[in-house]
């Protein structure tokens, strides 16, 4: 019942050897918008190197980077070392669908702001109007599968309950982003989304995303089809998304240089009010030590995860996450001098469900198995 290999790397940067090439002269090149802009700002190959900057606040250890760079070439091999991660991917879609069934971001946003009329009536087949940000997309296993569900014609109803309208996927590891882009071209549907800008891979960090100007903010030329990122908090200038995903990421950040608390807070600030922050990780318990460290990383044929993928001490438990998320939401609501109280948690929802891998049968959601190892979690940001 082992584990997953991280799909993604921690955010913030890495000092890649090539970094010096183009550092510093580009500060805010990326234009991040959750909107569907016909002429998208897809970084060209030359451009993508611009993001290889020297990041001052690195939360990624060189060990993690070199570990995942070595896996890059086999990332998409269905029988390769990332197989168990590929097998988990459908469960992510199901978990997102279950979150959206509980609370759908856009309808809530519209109810409170009443900005859009297009989708005011909830129909049997809801529109595809949710904008996604995948943090730590790695080789793009989740990002590409979600991009595949974006309808080619935006007026069509959503083909799946995940209702994606756009996907922005970021990862600091250049190798993985290149692998991801190359793989995306193998599918004409995904390729056309890449070309139209509905699907973007950015070799950047969450910090840069949050520091960039949102195109769809008030005053700017907005091409947003449904919910723009301008909501009740008019002070927000950076882009925000309906769904922010964090699959197999949080256990790979470097606790020496950053804290889970501040990392989660940044993730939450990228979520629109009423939207969801959805992730998966591994809990730090004795059974998970046995399953994930001893058994899953054992030599072949027992192990299913490459050695050195996980560090048990970096795992996080569901109650810890819940606490950090609450604290993060309150800090986001803090004013200049006043501190927000528990009122900032109004409308917050918390979901958590365990997932178990049984060799030969695959992944299964097992409620109550959170302490065994892998689990999905989700936080809804109150409106």
């Amino acid at each position, binding site marked *: 019942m082992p584990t997953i290999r991280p799909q993604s790397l921690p955010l913030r940067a890495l000092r890649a050897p090539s970094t010096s090439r183009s550092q510093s002269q580009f500060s805010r090149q990326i234009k991040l918008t959750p909107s569907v802009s016909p002429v998208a700002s897809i970084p060209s190959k030359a451009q993508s190197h611009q993001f290889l900057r020297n990041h001052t606040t690195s939360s990624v250890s060189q060990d993690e980077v070199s570990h995942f760079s070595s896996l890059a*070439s*086999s990332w998409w*091999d269905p029988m390769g070392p990332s197989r168990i991660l590929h097998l988990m*991917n459908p469960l992510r*879609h199901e978990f997102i669908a279950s979150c959206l069934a509980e609370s759908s971001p856009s309808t809530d946003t519209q109810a409170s702001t009443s900005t859009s009329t297009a989708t005011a009536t909830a129909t049997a087949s809801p529109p595809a109007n949710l904008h996604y940000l995948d943090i730590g997309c790695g080789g793009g296993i989740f990002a590409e*599968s979600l991009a595949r569900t974006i309808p080619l014609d935006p007026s069509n109803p959503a083909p*799946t309950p995940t209702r994606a309208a756009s996907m922005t996927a970021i990862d600091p590891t250049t190798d993985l982003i290149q692998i991801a882009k190359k*793989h995306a071209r*193998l599918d*004409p549907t995904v390729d056309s989304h890449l070309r139209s800008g509905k699907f973007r891979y950015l070799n950047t960090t969450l910090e840069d995303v949050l520091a960039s100007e949102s195109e769809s903010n008030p005053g700017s030329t907005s091409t947003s089809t449904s919910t723009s990122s301008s909501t009740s908090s008019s002070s927000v200038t950076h882009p925000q998304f309906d769904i922010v995903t964090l699959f197999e990421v949080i256990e790979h950040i470097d606790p020496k240089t950053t804290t889970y608390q501040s990392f989660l807070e940044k993730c939450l600030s990228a979520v629109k009010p009423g939207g969801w922050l959805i992730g998966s990780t591994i809990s730090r318990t004795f059974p998970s030590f046995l399953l994930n460290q001893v058994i899953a990383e054992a030599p072949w044929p027992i192990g299913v995860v490459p050695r050195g993928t996980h560090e048990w001490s970096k795992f996080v438990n569901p109650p810890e996450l819940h606490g950090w998320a609450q604290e993060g939401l309150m800090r986001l609501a803090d004013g200049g001098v006043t501190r927000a109280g528990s009122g900032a948690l109004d409308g917050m929802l918390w979901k958590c469900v365990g997932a178990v891998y049984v060799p030969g049968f695959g992944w299964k959601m097992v409620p109550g198995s959170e302490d065994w190892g892998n689990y999905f979690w989700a936080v809804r940001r109150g409106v």
Partner: protein
Amino acid sequence: MRPISRAALRPYVCASCRNGIGAGRRRFASATAQKPDIYDVVCVGGGPAGLGLLAALRASPVTSKLRVALVETQDLDKARTWNLDSSKFSNRVSSLTPSTVAFLQKIDAWKHLDIERVQEYQEMQVWDGETGSRISFDWSSETPAFEDLRTVATMTENSNLVRGLLGRIAASGDENVTLFSNHTVASIDNGSDQPDGPDLSAWPILSVKPTGANAETQAPSRIAARLLVGADGINSPVRTFADIPTQGWDYNRHGIVATLSLADLPTPFNNVHTAYQRFLPVLGGPIALLPLPNNHATLVWSTKPEHAAYLKSLPTPAFLAMVNAAFRLSMTDLSYMIGMSESSSEISHEDELDWRVKHTEQPSHIPPKAIGVQEGTVASFPLRFRHAAQYISPRVALVGDAAHVIHPLAGQGLNLGLADVASLSRTIEYAVSHGMDIGDLLTLERYSSERYLPNAKIGGACDLLHKMYTVPGQGPITWARSLGLDVIDKLPFVKSFLMKNAEGY
């Protein structure tokens, strides 16, 4: 593995291995400059399996938006307008298990079949011509008294099924579906990396050209398949393209088929219809008589090629005498009669049968006498066993006879094919609703892991039965198979376990 261009292999294969795989295959990009038309599912072969897959995909709301195409060499319009007098039946008839019928009902295809032309049967009598030991299959042990017996299987003509499936596909509208009727696959190649478009170098590109008179004048259409389904029979070109090896052997047997009319029966008790099968070890296989409506029946007689040639050469009365003899006479009598020369002996097959039946004790479970053969329905086909090494390859899946061909003695071939189709359509449905690429190995392995073992199990069981029942004379194997049959017949739970397996539950 089929040759794939080096660029496509890069993510999967290490540099040194790549050199070996890619070598020897070089194409000029200019030759494939024309952009192919992109489809989600391209099915080669318009038989029951291929059409069943298309109908299933059109029936599900999740997959009905997929762009699908089907390539068939024959004229599908002929199949669509197939019509036969209600007293006549095609000789290509299949026995559908209840789970197959349930699948056809689920995809709304069953109501497009002409129900007047199908015949359910509730009982099956199987016995050993050598020893007389017998097993009867029915659901009486699990049916309360005064209730109708459950159906064991349903006989239907393949043409009726194909016409029904075409009707189902037509009822789903013509948006996103293309039927290349009267078209043949001229070639299948890997695509190319288009600098201004997607990288199709691992995609199968089919060159499809029309058959018939104006074949040369029309340019072939080039279509790219996200998933290429081979429903193209035992010599599957799709399987050849995917470079999937297939193992198996020829049984050195032929199956003789014919549509017969039977003597009038007393009205069957409880409206029970019966299928009969008798193993004839000296002639190399079983003879089966399966019911069709209005006292008709279809014959399937597996026998050695020389016997098959002999039987086909007989005039109708002699052929009927042989069929009736095969259900009634001892092995010794039968081997004599199959050697009778029509010209040299004055005694006809009919007289010989009449005389010998008088001196043979008849069991109670023999079928009614066959009294007529529908003209032009006596035909034969070779029996073979084949099993593909894999059902899947990147962007390729095999279904039906392209994946497996089995001995027809249990009437399971078409049922396995449609079970493949049901599984593959479920797999595609799951993939679409979870953002998976339907041609990806990670998607397709769900199909192959669901179907490979069940097909191998049924195919192997049929092979074992065939081998056990071709041992003539008295001996340990004869003794063992008779004991086995008698024991199973007396143990209701073993029998219902076997029946459930045969039904596909």
